[in-house]
C-alpha cells in the first residue's frame, strides 16, 4: 500500500492509515513546519557509526530547527553496554562532534536528553523485544508520544530479517498497534542481489505494508537531487528540449577519491555496481529520465520513476562486455599522497576480483529517450570527488560560421550534486572583435550563493519525511526490484568471469583506459 500525505482543515492524514491529530481549529492554516504527529523513534544499531555520525546529529538538528514533534522520544537498541545516562552522554558527544549546528545548546539538550533512553540488547533475545514494547508504552505515557512508532534499522543488513521478525513476535507490528502508526526505515543495501532482495522483501511484507516501509537512499535526500525535479518541472525552458530530438547523451558520474577505508570487509563483497550504481546512480537516472508526474504525490512520482526502470532492458550476457567496463584500483597518488592498491587494503582479499569502478551504457527504450545513451560511472580512488549529471545537447545543425563551426562546443547542462551543489550551463558566445570567433562560456548557479543557505544533510530531510509519512524520497519495492533485475546480468557475468587485467587503473587516475572505449566523451574528472 502506498503512502500519501495530505493536509486539510488542519488535519494531517497519511495513507498508512492514521491521522496526525484530531481537528483543532487553531491548527487551521498554521504552518509551523513542525511534524505534527508525536512519535517514538527506535534506532536498532544505535551504538554504530551511522548513528553516531549521521543519525543522532540529524535528530538534534531537527530539534534545533523546530521540526521534531513536540512530543517525541528516542530509544537506542543495540548490543553495546550503555546505561541511559552513558548513552545520553554518547549522544551528546556525537552531536558535539558531528552536528552541522555545532555544539549542543544546553537549554535544548536538557529537554531532549530526558526523552532519550537505551536498551542493551541481543537481537536474538525475544525477551529484550518484549521489554522494548513495554518501554514504548511507558514512552507513550511519559512523553505523550501516543502509539506512533518509527523503527530505524541502522544495523548490518544481515540482521534486518531477524529484527523484523522479533518486532512481529513482540506485538510491535503495525497490525497490533491500535493506538497509532508503525513505520520502518530500512537502510541500504536492500539485499545483495535480486534473490536476497526478494527474500528480504518477503520478510518485510510479512509484517509491514509497502506504505509503512521507508527504504532509505540518502542520495535522494540531497538538495541538488531534489532540485532535479524543480529544474525540470518548475521551468518551461527545459522540458521542450528534454528528449532525443535535442539531447545527444546523458552522463551520470559518482566519483570518489577515497578508497574503501575501514569498510574493506563489506566492500569486497559488494563492489561499485552494488554499492553505488544499483541504488544511488540508478535513482539519479530515474529523476532525469522520468515523465512529468501528474502530481507531487509520492506515488505519482514513484510510478514515473518505475516506468523509467521498466523501459531499461536488462543486458543479454553477451552484451555485458560491450556495454560495461569494470576496474579495480592499483597503488597510486591521490591529492599528492601515495595510496595503496585495493588488494592491499584492510580486510580485502589479496586476489580480490571485486570492482572498485563500474561504467555502464544504458538505453531507455521509450518515445522520449530512444537512441540516447545514458552513461553511468562510479568508482573509488579516482582523480576527483565529484557527483554530477551532465546532459549534452546535439551539435548545431547548420555551419553558419564556416570552418569555425567545427570548433563550436555542444551545449551542456550539468547538475552538480557534490562537492559543489548547483547547475551550470555551457553555451557559446562571440568573442568581442571584428572576427567571428566563437567561444564557449559557462553560466553557473551555486546553491550556497544563489540562496545563501546551507543545504541540510540528507538524513535530516529523510528522517523528517518518514515521521511525516511522506515517502516521496524513499525507494519503493518495485523500483528496487527492477534496479536489481537490470544489474543482475552484469553481476552474474562479472562474478563468473574474473577480470585478469585487475588492477587496471592507478589510484588518482580517471579510471580504466577502456572506459573511454565505452564513452570517448566522458567529462574529465
Amino acid at each position, binding site marked *: 500500500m502506498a503512502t500519501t500525505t495530505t493536509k486539510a482543515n488542519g488535519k494531517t492524514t497519511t495513507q498508512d492509515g492514521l491521522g496526525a491529530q*484530531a481537528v483543532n*481549529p487553531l491548527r487551521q492554516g498554521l504552518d509551523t513546519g513542525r511534524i505534527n504527529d508525536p512519535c517514538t523513534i527506535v534506532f536498532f544499531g544505535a551504538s554504530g557509526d551511522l548513528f553516531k555520525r549521521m543519525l543522532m546529529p540529524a535528530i538534534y538538528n531537527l530539534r534545533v530547527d523546530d521540526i521534531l514533534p513536540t512530543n517525541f522520544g528516542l530509544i537506542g537498541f543495540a548490543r553495546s553496554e550503555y546505561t541511559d545516562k552513558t548513552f545520553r552522554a554518547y549522544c551528546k558527544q556525537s552531536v558535539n562532534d558531528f552536528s552541522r549546528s555545532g555544539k549542543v545548546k544546553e537549554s535544548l539538550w536538557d529537554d531532549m536528553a530526558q526523552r532519550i533512553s537505551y536498551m542493551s540488547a541481543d537481537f536474538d533475545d525475544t525477551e529484550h523485544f518484549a521489554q522494548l514494547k513495554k518501554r514504548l508504552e511507558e514512552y507513550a505515557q511519559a512523553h505523550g508520544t501516543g502509539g506512533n512508532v518509527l523503527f530505524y534499522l541502522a544495523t548490518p543488513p544481515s540482521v534486518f530479517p531477524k529484527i523484523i521478525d522479533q518486532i512481529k513476535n513482540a506485538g510491535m507490528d503495525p497490525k497490533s498497534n491500535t493506538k497509532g502508526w508503525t513505520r520502518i526505515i530500512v537502510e541500504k543495501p536492500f539485499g545483495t542481489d535480486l534473490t536476497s532482495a526478494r527474500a528480504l522483501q518477503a520478510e518485510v511484507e510479512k509484517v509491514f505494508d509497502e506504505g509503512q516501509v521507508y527504504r532509505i537512499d540518502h542520495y535522494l535526500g540531497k538538495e541538488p537531487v531534489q532540485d532535479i525535479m524543480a529544474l525540470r518541472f518548475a521551468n518551461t525552458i527545459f522540458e521542450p528540449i528534454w528528449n532525443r530530438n535535442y539531447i545527444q547523451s546523458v552522463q551520470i558520474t559518482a566519483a570518489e577519491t577515497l578508497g574503501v577505508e575501514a569498510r574493506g570487509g563489506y566492500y569486497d563483497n559488494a563492489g561499485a555496481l552494488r554499492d553505488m550504481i544499483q541504488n544511488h546512480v540508478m535513482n539519479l537516472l530515474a529523476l532525469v529520465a522520468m515523465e512529468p508526474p501528474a502530481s507531487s504525490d509520492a506515488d505519482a512520482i514513484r510510478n514515473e520513476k518505475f516506468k523509467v526502470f521498466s523501459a531499461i532492458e536488462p543486458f543479454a550476457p553477451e552484451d555485458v562486455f560491450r556495454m560495461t567496463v569494470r576496474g579495480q584500483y592499483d597503488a597510486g597518488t591521490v591529492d599528492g599522497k601515495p595510496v595503496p592498491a585495493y588488494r592491499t587494503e584492510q580486510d580485502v582479499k589479496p586476489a580480490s576480483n571485486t570492482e572498485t569502478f563500474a561504467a555502464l551504457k544504458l538505453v531507455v527504450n521509450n518515445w522520449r529517450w530512444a537512441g540516447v545513451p545514458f552513461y553511468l560511472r562510479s568508482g573509488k580512488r579516482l582523480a576527483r570527488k565529484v557527483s554530477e549529471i551532465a546532459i549534452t545537447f546535439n551539435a548545431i545543425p547548420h555551419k553558419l560560421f564556416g570552418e569555425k563551426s567545427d570548433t563550436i562546443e555542444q551545449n551542456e547542462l550539468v547538475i552538480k550534486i557534490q562537492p559543489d551543489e548547483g547547475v551550470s550551463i555551457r553555451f557559446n558566445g562571440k568573442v568581442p572583435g571584428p572576427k567571428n570567433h566563437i567561444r564557449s562560456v559557462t553560466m553557473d548557479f551555486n546553491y550556497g550563493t*544563489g540562496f545563501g543557505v546551507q543545504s541540510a544533510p540528507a538524513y535530516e530531510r529523510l528522517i523528517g519525511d518518514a515521521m511525516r509519512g511522506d515517502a516521496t524520497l524513499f525507494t519503493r519495492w518495485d523500483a528496487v526490484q527492477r534496479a536489481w533485475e537490470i544489474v543482475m546480468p552484469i553481476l552474474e557475468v562479472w562474478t563468473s568471469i574474473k577480470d585478469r587485467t585487475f588492477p587496471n587503473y592507478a589510484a588518482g587516475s580517471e579510471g580504466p583506459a577502456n572506459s573511454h572505449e565505452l564513452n570517448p566523451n566522458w567529462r574529465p574528472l
Partner: protein
Amino acid sequence: MSLNVNEILGELTKDRKDRVGVSATTLNLVAFVEDAALLGWLKERIDAIAQKHPSRTLVLDATHTDSTHAVHTEAKDVGDTLSTHAEAIELGVAGVSAESLASIVRALTVPNVQTVLCWAGSHLAGDMRFRQLTSIANSLVLDSSRVDATAQTLYELTDWMAGGHHPAVRDLAYMRLGPWQDMIAQFFDEADLAGELASISRVTVAAGSQAEAYYLVGWLASRLQWHARGAAEFCNSQGQIIAVAFEEQGGARRVRRIALESGHSTFTAELQKDSPDLVCLRVEGKKARPQRCAPLHDIDVVSLIEEAILVPDGGNLFRESLATARALLEERGSSS
C-alpha cells in the same frame, strides 16, 4: 534634486570592475527609514540579508538630505570562477518628493528581479512616499509595532490593503507570533481539551507592545469565529461573550503571557522569568494537566525578514487575524 542616478550607477560599475566572473542578483532590497535611532539597526539587518541573498540594497535614509550617498560592492569567491556581488547604495532622501523618490528607486534597482520594500517610516498610507514606493515593490515588509507604540498601524494597514491593488504584505509583528500560536494550539491538540475551546469566556494577553497583543487575539478570534462586540469583548457563534484584557508587561515586541479561561479550566502559556527562552504551559482547573515547559523558538528579525522575502504573502491567516484585530480596535475607538 542633487542626487545623480547616473553618477551612482557609474560608481557601482567602477567599484566592481575588477571583479571576475558572474554577478548574481536575486533581489532588490529597498529600505526606507526616517528615524535616526533606527538607521544603524536596520542597516545591520539589511546587510545580513544581503550576505545570504545576492542583492542590490538601497537604503533610503530620510534623516539625511539628498546631497549624501554611499556606494559599496562586495564579491564572494566561489570555486575558481564565480564571484557574486552584494551591491549597497545608501542615499540621503530627506526632502525628496515622493515622485522623485520613486523615480530614483526605479532607476537604481535591478530590473526583472523581485523588489522588496522594508518600510520603517512613521506612517503608512498617509505618507505619499509609502504609496509611491509600494507601487514599485513586489512585496512590503513592515513591523507595525515599531511604527507606533499603540496598535493604530493595524488600522492604517487594513485600510490601505482594502484600498485596492497592493504588493504582498508581511508584518513582522504578526510573524513573530508564530511560536506563540503554536504553543496555544498545542493545548488543544489533545481531543479531550479541544472541546474547551467552545467555552472560552476570557482571554488575557500580557505583552510589551500592543500590535503583537492585538494580532494574537485577532488570530485566536478569527480561528474560533468570534466577532468583536464591544471595546473589550467578542461574541462567539452561540452568542456567548468572551472578555478580552490586555496587560502591558515585559519588553517591547515580546509577548509575556496568554491565559484562556474556559468553562472548566484555565490554559496559561507564560514566559519564565528566570529563563526568558522557556515557556511553561499550564492547564489548571477541572481538566488540569501537569505543567510542561518548552523552549520558545524566538525568531530574530533577520530571519523574519528573510522569511518575508521567501514567502512574500502572509496568506489568509494573516489577513483574517488583521481584520479581526482591527474590528476590535474599531470597537474600542467607537466606545472611547
